[in-house]
C-alpha cells in the first residue's frame, strides 16, 4: 500500500453475532481526496466507519491508516463526526470543545476560537447541546472534530438536518479544508451534494463494495440513461422489476422511467422508448447502489 494512501482496507469482514455486516470490503482513500461513501440504509457505511475509528474491534482483514498498521497512534490524526453517536446533551458547546482539546492535547484558549470561527458556531457555544437546533449541534460537533487540525476528517451524514444556508456553508468549509490538504471521508444520502463535493466515490451494497473510483473513471464506464414512457408509473416500475430484475430503473418524470445501463435493454410491450442520454454521476451511483451488477 502506498504512503500516499490515507486509508487502505483489504478484505474486511465484520459480523454481529452470526449476521455478516461487512463482507470482504476493500477500499482505498488517497491523500487529499474527498471520498464519498454511498449506499442504501443498512448497507454497512456507518459500521465501516466505526471499524476504522476503533469502535468495533472484532473484525477480520487488514486496515492501514496513513500507511501504517499502528492504528491507535494514527487515529490521533483523525477528526470524526458520527451520526449515531451523540454527546452528553447537557454539556455546553464550549465544554464539549474544551474536552476535545484535552483529548487532543491542544490549547483550549486558541483552539476553541479557531475551530468555532471555521464552523461559524461562536455565537452559540454558550448554549447547552440540548438547546441547540440540529444545525447548530452539528456545527459544534464538526468544530470538535476539527480540534487539533486533523489530517483526515471522517463525517457520517454531515448534511442531515442542516438548512440550505448551513449546507452551503458546510460545503464551503469542506472545500476549504480539502484545499488545505485535509483528506475527507464522507457518507451521505444526499447524492447531489456529494457529487458537487467529492473527488472519489465508493459504493457499498449489502456489505460489499460494489464499485469504487474517481468521478472521471465512473463517467468513463459508458453508462446511459434510457427513457421509457409507461401508462402508469408504479405499475411500470413493478413490471420492470419482475421481468428484468438485473436492471436499475428510476422514476424519471411523470409517466416515464429512466433505465440506467451500459447497453439498451430490450423491454416488453408497454414500455415506449423515448430517448437516450449519457448518465450523470448521480445516476451511475444509483445504479451501483441498487447492486444490480451483482445479480446480472
Amino acid at each position, binding site marked *: 500500500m502506498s504512503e500516499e494512501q490515507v486509508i487502505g482496507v483489504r478484505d474486511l469482514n465484520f459480523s*454481529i453475532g452470526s449476521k455478516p455486516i461487512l463482507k470482504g470490503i476493500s477500499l482505498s482513500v488517497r491523500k487529499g481526496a474527498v471520498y464519498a461513501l454511498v449506499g442504501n440504509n443498512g448497507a454497512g457505511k456507518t459500521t465501516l466507519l*466505526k471499524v476504522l*475509528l*476503533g*469502535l*468495533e*474491534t*472484532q473484525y477480520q482483514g487488514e486496515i492501514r491508516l496513513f500507511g501504517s498498521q499502528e*492504528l*491507535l*497512534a*494514527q*487515529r*490521533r490524526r*483523525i477528526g*470524526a463526526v*458520527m451520526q*449515531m*453517536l*451523540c*454527546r*452528553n*446533551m447537557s454539556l455546553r458547546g464550549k465544554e464539549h470543545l*474544551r*474536552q*476535545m482539546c*484535552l*483529548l*487532543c*492535547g491542544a490549547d483550549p484558549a486558541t483552539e476553541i476560537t479557531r475551530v468555532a470561527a471555521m464552523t461559524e458556531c461562536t455565537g452559540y457555544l454558550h448554549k447547552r447541546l440540548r438547546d441547540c437546533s440540529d444545525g447548530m449541534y452539528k456545527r459544534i460537533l464538526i468544530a*470538535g472534530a476539527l480540534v487539533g487540525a486533523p489530517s483526515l476528517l471522517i463525517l457520517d451524514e454531515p448534511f442531515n438536518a442542516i438548512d440550505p444556508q448551513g449546507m452551503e456553508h458546510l460545503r464551503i468549509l469542506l472545500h476549504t479544508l480539502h484545499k488545505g490538504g485535509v483528506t475527507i471521508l464522507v457518507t451521505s444520502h444526499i447524492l447531489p451534494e456529494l457529487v458537487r463535493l467529492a473527488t472519489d466515490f465508493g459504493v457499498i451494497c449489502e456489505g460489499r463494495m460494489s464499485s469504487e473510483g474517481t468521478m472521471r473513471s465512473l463517467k468513463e464506464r459508458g453508462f446511459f440513461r434510457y427513457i421509457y414512457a409507461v401508462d402508469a408509473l408504479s405499475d411500470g416500475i413493478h413490471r420492470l422489476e419482475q421481468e428484468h430484475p438485473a436492471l436499475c430503473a428510476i422514476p424519471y418524470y411523470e409517466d416515464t422511467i429512466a433505465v440506467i445501463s451500459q447497453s439498451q435493454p430490450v423491454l416488453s410491450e408497454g414500455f415506449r422508448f423515448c430517448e437516450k442520454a449519457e448518465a450523470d454521476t448521480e445516476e451511475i451511483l444509483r445504479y451501483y447502489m441498487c447492486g444490480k451488477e451483482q445479480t446480472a
Partner: protein
Amino acid sequence: MRKLLALQCRKTFCNAAAAAIFGSALLLSAAVVIFLQNISGTLSGVSDDMLETFRQGQYYNFLVVQMRSRDELEHLYTNQLLTRILNSSSLTVLLSVYISRTVTAEFRQGGFFAAVAKGCRRSSVYLSYLLVMLLFTFLLAVTYLAGFLVSATAAGIPSTEIAPGELAAVLLTQVFMLFSFSVFCTTLSVLLRQTTAAMLTAVSVVLALPSGFTYLRVVQHISFPFEKFWVLSRLSDLTGRMPEMGDYLSAAGLAIGSAAAGLLFLNCIHIKNE
C-alpha cells in the same frame, strides 16, 4: 492515560452537581446523627418485646446502623457508630450504583466514543472513568464521615478512643468492595443497556444473597459448606468484627476478578448509541 484522567477529573469535579452532592452528604450525615440520637433517647422507654421486632439475626437493625445489644443502643459512642456505618454494605452499594450510573451514561453519550476515536485504548478509557469516579466517591464518603463526626461532637455524643488501625482496616476493605461492586454494576449496566434494571439486579445480588445465607444459618440453623467461600457473604458479615486476612484476600480477589472480566467484556462490546 494522564490526559484521560485529567479529562475525567474535569468532567466529574468541575460542575455544580458535584458541589451539591458533597453538600447533601454533609446534610445527610447530620440527619443520621439526629436520627440516632432520637432512637437512643426513645429506647429507654421501649419494652424488650418491642425491641426484639427490630432484631435480624444477632443484631438490631435500625436502617442506617446495626447494634448488638440494648446497652450499645442506649449508650451511643461516636467511634462505634462510625465503624458500623463504614462496615454497612449499604453505603458501598449506593456508591457503586452511583459510579455505574455515571460511567454507563458516558458510554451511551459518546464520551467513550470520542476518546476511542482519538486513539485511546478502550481499557485506558474505562479505567480512567473508574479511577476518577472512585476518587470522587471516596472523597464523598470522607465528607460524609467528617460531617458525621462534627455533627456527633456538636450533638454531644461521647466518643471513646478510636483505634486508627481498626478504622483503616475497615476503610481498606470497603474500598476493595466498592471497586469490585462498581465494576460489576457498570459491566451489567453496559451489557443490559438498561441502567435501572442492571442496578436493581446488582443491588439484589449484593443485599439479598448474603442476607439469605445469614437467615438460613441464624434462623433455620442450616449452614452450607460453600458459604464461607462466598465472598459477598463473608464481606457482608463484617459488621461487629474486625476484618481478617481472609476478608482482604476475598475483597481483593473480587475486585481484580470483576475488573478483569469487565475489561475483557468491554474490549469486544459494540458501541451503540441509545
